């Protein structure tokens, strides 16, 4: 395979420099600062800093509320990913089969991706409002059946649905592209052999979609650990009683509201490592089973 190489290294460096600068300023520098703060006790207004080694990490690991956050984050990640990918796959399969109106759906389905997380949170907060939203009709028939203010499970379900909705557009594009890269001749061959729609989906399209599924799995799970902040902040603020206290939200609460800079820095280091480990795990073990044609 031919490898592209630049005779002029300066051009290469100049082209790459802006991106490297951005990554340095917005990732490496803050991470180094967070690492420093995680191993010390940082006073909010500056003026003092005491080395405490692993104390911050130890107190976090011993904190049951932190493990509650971890648990909530994992549940959120798995449920939101499954829901989002399931919905997107169904829609992509329908669009791929060129059912009536598919051109409009193809364009329209991409628009929700432009909606920012806080806007999604606010919209769904209204929809799921127990006394004014759509769910209020359910509450009128059976009072108290939907109560995200006091019931943690309802609040978490609400946040999961909002998070999943937000990701559907992104997943839809990739699924549709993946489906359309399957050669038409294969699909027609199976159809001629008498395979119905469902059989075609299960035996032909899904296995060939495996690389896309894998890619989206990685993106969705890491996104749900980090991008979910906007949704939680506008919908439930971590409540009730910490039922939706995602790790990323807890970092914000402890650091910026609670003025516990060192504890929040330590938590963010742990979150960063967790996401790295997840990604590594997925690439190393799940990719083995994927066949790229």
């Amino acid at each position, binding site marked *: 395979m031919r490898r592209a190489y630049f005779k002029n290294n300066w051009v290469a460096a100049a082209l790459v420099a802006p991106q490297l600068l951005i990554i340095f300023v917005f990732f490496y520098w803050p991470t180094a600062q967070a690492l420093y703060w995680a191993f010390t006790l940082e006073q909010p207004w500056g*003026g003092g800093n005491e080395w405490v080694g692993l104390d911050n990490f130890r107190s976090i690991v011993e904190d049951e509320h932190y493990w509650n956050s971890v648990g909530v984050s994992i549940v959120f990640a798995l449920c939101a990913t499954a829901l989002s990918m399931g919905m997107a796959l169904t829609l992509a399969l329908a669009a791929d089969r060129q059912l009536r109106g598919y051109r409009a759906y193809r364009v329209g389905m991409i628009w929700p991706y432009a909606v920012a997380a806080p806007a999604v949170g606010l919209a769904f907060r209204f929809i799921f409002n127990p006394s004014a939203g759509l769910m209020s009709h359910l509450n009128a028939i059976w009072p108290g059946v939907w109560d995200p203010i*006091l019931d943690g499970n309802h609040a978490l379900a609400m946040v999961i649905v909002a998070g999943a909705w937000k990701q559907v557009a992104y997943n839809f594009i990739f699924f549709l592209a993946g489906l359309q890269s399957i050669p038409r001749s294969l699909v027609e061959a199976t159809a001629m052999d008498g395979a119905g729609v469902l059989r075609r989906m299960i035996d032909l399209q899904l296995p060939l979609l495996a690389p896309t599924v894998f890619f989206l799995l990685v993106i969705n799970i890491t996104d749900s650990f980090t991008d979910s902040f906007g949704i939680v902040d506008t919908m439930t603020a971590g409540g009730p009683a910490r039922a939706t206290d995602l790790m990323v939200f807890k970092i914000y609460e402890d650091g910026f*509201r609670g003025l516990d800079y060192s504890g929040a820095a330590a938590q963010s280091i742990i979150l960063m490592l967790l996401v790295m480990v997840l990604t590594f795990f997925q690439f190393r073990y799940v990719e083995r089973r994927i066949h790229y044609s």
Partner: protein
Amino acid sequence: MKLSTIAAAAGILALSGGAASAEPIKFEYWYGLSGHLGSVVQKTCERFNASQDAFEIVCVGQEGYAQAVQNTIAAFRAGKHPTIVQAYDAGTADLMMSGEFYPVQKMMADYKIAIDWKNYFPGIANYYASSKGELFSMPFNSSTAVMYYNIDQLKAAGVSEPPATWEGFEASLKKLKAGGQACPFAYAPSSWVDLEQFSMAHNVPIASNNNGYDGLDSKLLFNTTLHVKHMENLKRWKDEGLLQIRTSQGGLNARDSFAQGECSYYFGSIASHATVNAVAKKGLHWDVAMLPVYKGVERHNTVVGGASLWVLSKKSDDEYRGAAAYLAFLATPESERFWSENTGYIPVTRTGFKKLMDEGFYSAPPYKGREVAIESLTYTEPGPLTRGIRLGGFIQIRKEWMNEIETAFAGKKTVQAALDTAVERGNAALAKFARLYKGKALP
């Protein structure tokens, strides 16, 4: 001819340039109030700028107390902080321990501005003063918790006077409910009202060391005081349908539920007095009264909420001069009147209050009733337990309290167990705060 005209014009320009007044010295003020109250703060800044031309204050709203503190800390670390910041009670401890402020009493003395510090209500000044009584920050928007009640609904249920005791309050709730009122009491758990103001009025401690004033090694005590019985009563009232939980996430919050006439009682800050006026349903007859106390308990003064104005360090002499001028401006009776007229906040000085009383400001709606807040704040001289609260990590402590109370109200734990957990976790936050500032003492 042309040349001389040009020369003349140039001469005039040069002269006018020289004679033009010096640029006003600019300095910044970051405030946390938002919405209607935030716009009134902006107006005070405009009034200051219009009243003199040596200084120009630039006021930037931060959309929230917590945001104001966060943003100021971030700016401070970059050396781009404002001269004055409006910091709320929960953000006070960290700022105080850092020492990165210019005590206002010292500043006014340095810049030879005469302020009568004894004129400030002790219940207000003590919250912001050092252990020796020197004021660190300028009291500005001070409020306290009061009981809002619907006169008509109470009368219809046979309650002619607002209850002064909690036992009387419960009796009135039962009467209201019996009379067909679906929501006698709009309740939203709030540590400021239910824990802090309650403990002050009943003279019970929230934490050791006189609520943190005497040292950094304080421990929370509210799971052993009358507060437990009070929260148990509230939970019982919820279970018996005598109160309804009203929060913004569920639709109307407690204040709006009251203002719409849906509920007969609600407890909140006097600062909402103006807001309730503005959003009340037409024909709503309502008033405010002091918080009830339990029978047999001697009532004490409540303390302020709200925020105060801090002058931060590492600014130039000119900016401090401007800040001193602005703070002095705010302390004038006209400014206090302006502030009291446009918001529900109460005047912070004795003469300011007396002036308004003499003018009959509080004798007619829409201001009638706000003097109840002053009465509550000055009921007794502040004692060791009713000076205020000076605890580190207080934002976390409030959050722990809130989370545990939510759990208790959802029926998952008893109130005592919930408060025990809140105290345990709050003490961990206090210990961390003490560790953070090891070797330093509270000023």
